[in-house]
């Protein structure tokens, strides 16, 4: 079966700025970078066992963008027996992008550099989305 869609599951956390950045990155992917191929999935909906969500994670590619090392999105996908193409961690991106001064103390607004980091994460994930869908010549 050809897969042309890639589910992107961001973190649903609310205690750290990393969760906010993961959602910003997911929005950037869906809105600007890969609107055709990316599909955002609510983690809460998947956790409740919603039929539509569970079907999607079994039919499409899955990428998680977790905020912190608890990796809730990744773990819950595995719990649903879904295959995870790649699991990303915002905290690791922060280490790789030390030129950005992200305001990690402000959960609701990690600042301009936080937005910049989200865009960089989005670009890297978009490249992976291209790779995944191009396996079947759909990119």
């Amino acid at each position, binding site marked *: 079966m050809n897969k042309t869609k890639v589910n992107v599951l*961001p973190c*649903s*956390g*609310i*205690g750290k700025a990393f*969760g*906010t950045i993961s*959602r*910003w990155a*997911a*929005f*950037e992917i*869906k*809105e*600007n970078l890969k609107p055709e191929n990316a599909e*955002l*999935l*609510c*983690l*809460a*909906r998947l*956790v*409740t066992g*919603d039929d539509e969500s569970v079907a999607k994670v079994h039919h499409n590619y899955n990428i998680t963008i977790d905020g912190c090392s*608890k990796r*809730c999105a990744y*773990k*819950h996908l595995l719990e649903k027996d879904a295959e995870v193409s790649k699991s990303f961690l915002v905290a690791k991106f922060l280490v790789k992008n030390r030129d950005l001064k992200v305001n990690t103390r*402000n*959960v*609701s*607004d990690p600042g301009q550099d936080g*937005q910049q980091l*989200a865009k960089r994460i989005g670009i890297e994930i978009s490249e992976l989305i291209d790779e995944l869908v191009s396996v079947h010549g759909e990119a």
Partner: protein
Amino acid sequence: MKKNIVIPCMGCEKLLGQLCTLAILHLKRANPSKITLEPSISQIAAGEYKESILGDNTIALNGCAIQCVNKILNQRKIKPNLIISIPKIIKDIKLPQKGQATLDYQDHEAVKSISNQILSQIEVFLEKSQNMETKPENKVEFNPEYSQFLEAEFSKFHFKVPVNDKNLFFNWNEAWAYHIGEGKFFIGITDYLQTKLADILICELPKIGDKIDQFEAVANIESSKTVNEVLTPFSGEVLAVNHELEEYPEWINEDPYLKGWIVLVKCPNYKEEIDDLMNPYQYFEFLEEKIKEEGLQY
């Protein structure tokens, strides 16, 4: 002092979920001391959830009609004190045009308006909680004795009519009243009316102490089909209201003659007013005639 713990869905699939996420963060930024945020997922995975919110006000914040937070809390056997549903509070809010949220929506007017609406719902809830704590007499239990249920049929519908030979009365406007002694009556609507109204969404209750005349509106019910006034079978003063219906108006659909009771009134003139009402058998006959003539039409 109890904390107000808001558990948002943090949705990202639909615009409303996304705006809900942005709004609750906006609210936290603007009023850091008024709410505490807890995630719907991560602490559940860690098994720490219930302990951390025990004894505080738990507020479920659902971005869309799927109501994931309610379901998650239900799985954990946690009953929220307040449920806020974004689709119910956006009636007058102008939403962004695009289907997906972007980083630009952070300071969108809709986000600020939704944030204000959430805060307003929390404040109304706190005020009501305070009133209930200071008026313990409002916490009343309704334990009627029904000897049997008569059943009338129409198409696929079955309408139940409970029987109590001495204490149960009905008016022609599909309201019932159950006498518990000393002129005190629990009042609700009939099974027929709740079926006709379909899914009840809001039950607007009177205030304790309100005085009402016989056959006047004592409550308003809004359903998926219409808005309906509940016309009281007895006059008198409102002694108690069923506050649970503010959170669970669907109880009127599920159990109109028990947990769907609406108000408790004290009627000084009840012996005279009873003459204008029907007993359960008379109401049953009236109902059967009505079904033949009207069915479920308005």
